[in-house]
């Protein structure tokens, strides 16, 4: 944690997902669940009651199917979930640009879930139950949430904290570099994680063929998608488009 001020070097962590490379294998979903102590769904769980911070959607475009991993988009401007939370349990961290969901404060009213245009938030309906022995493999860097709270992707905040601890130990200043679990696990290397203050990464996020989901809403998502297929861009663009003015 650094002091905010003129000398502060803040980060704007973002993700760039190459949809041409993604083949929908779901390794990122598994890695995400393991990293963040998300319990496996019970047999009776439905898509609504099961817990997933990261979901891979299948997009049928007529030709080859496209697969779109969707997690919290880490909205930068007018973060919808933050502005509706009556508990201030959602925070936009100015140092990292990560939208934090604080289970200690969450009432479970799920207003944020209604506000999120990406349906990226999930509600914890049950206390986590682990298959025998699996609780020994829990990640000590991430606390296990209890039922009645809303959860979401936080760009593997535990890994960020670990990197920060290492940086403090080594006496390094400035934003730290780390890799979230999904980006690390992706066998096709479709997920790239970086800092938008880094010029090379920022340029990659503004190349031809890069788009963001529901860009017209003006929420400023920091998850970018790249595809060379115009039909995929077209199929996602029409979804939920809002006319302004």
């Amino acid at each position, binding site marked *: 944690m650094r*002091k905010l001020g003129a000398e502060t070097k803040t980060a704007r962590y973002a993700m760039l997902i190459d949809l041409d490379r993604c083949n929908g294998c779901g390794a990122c979903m598994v890695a995400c669940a393991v990293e963040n102590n998300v319990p496996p769904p019970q047999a009776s769980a439905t898509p609504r009651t099961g817990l997933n911070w990261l979901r891979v959607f299948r997009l049928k475009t007529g030709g080859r199917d496209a697969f779109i991993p969707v997690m919290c988009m880490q909205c930068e401007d007018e973060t919808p979930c933050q502005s509706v939370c009556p508990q201030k349990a959602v925070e936009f961290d100015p140092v990292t640009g990560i939208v934090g969901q604080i289970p200690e404060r969450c009432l479970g009213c799920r207003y944020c879930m209604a506000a999120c245009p990406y349906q990226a938030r999930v509600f914890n309906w049950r206390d986590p139950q682990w298959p025998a022995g699996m609780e020994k493999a829990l990640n000590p*860097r991430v*606390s296990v949430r209890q039922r009645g709270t809303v959860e979401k992707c*936080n760009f593997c*905040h535990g890994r960020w904290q*670990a990197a920060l*601890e*290492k940086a*403090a130990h080594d006496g390094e200043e400035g934003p730290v570099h780390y890799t979230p679990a999904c980006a690390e696990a992706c066998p096709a290397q479709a997920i790239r994680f970086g800092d938008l203050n880094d010029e090379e990464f920022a340029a990659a996020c503004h190349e031809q063929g890069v788009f963001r989901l529901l860009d017209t809403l003006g929420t400023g998502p920091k998850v970018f998608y790249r595809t060379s297929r115009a039909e995929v861009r077209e199929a996602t663009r029409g979804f939920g488009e809002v006319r302004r003015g």
Partner: protein
Amino acid sequence: MIRTGILFLAGFSVAFSAGWWSMPRILYREEPQPVQFSHIAHVGEKGGMSCEDCHSFRVDGTFAGVPKLESCAGCHSAPLGETQAEKDFIARFVEPGIEPQWKIYARQPDNAWFPHSAHVQRGKVACEKCHGDIGKSDRLPVYRVHRFTGYPEDVMGKRTGPLGLKRAGGMRMDDCVACHRQNRLEHSCLDCHK
């Protein structure tokens, strides 16, 4: 009228004192440490060791905390001195190779992230600021654990209201936040919560 008042005051003071005396005993349970340990005997002129000899940092920046048995056995493979506690320690732990289950006074809740590196090495916070003068103690303080939450008293604090009766070395969220606020380091809940 006056008699009623006196009776009420007497009853109130008896009940109040009884509650004041008994509540901490009801809420907290004392648990023994596996071995009586003297910091004074180890550090300073007497022992010649520094804090970092036992409480060290790992390469990845995490804090090793309480030393493992092998660090103790490095010197205490055979009894040093004549005390009975020393002989007991060798017989109970070192010879069978059983790790002593030390009770940690400052054990934090599962959802709190506290990096020692950032505070000690970058922030230059002295150990005593949070842990008190335990490094100068000859005996381990009594370890008292909350019966319901399972957290030690030093984390929960002894403060039970606006009276400000605070034990030195208590580590509560208020203390963390106060220090962060003072140093203009307060950004986000997720700086400390995981």
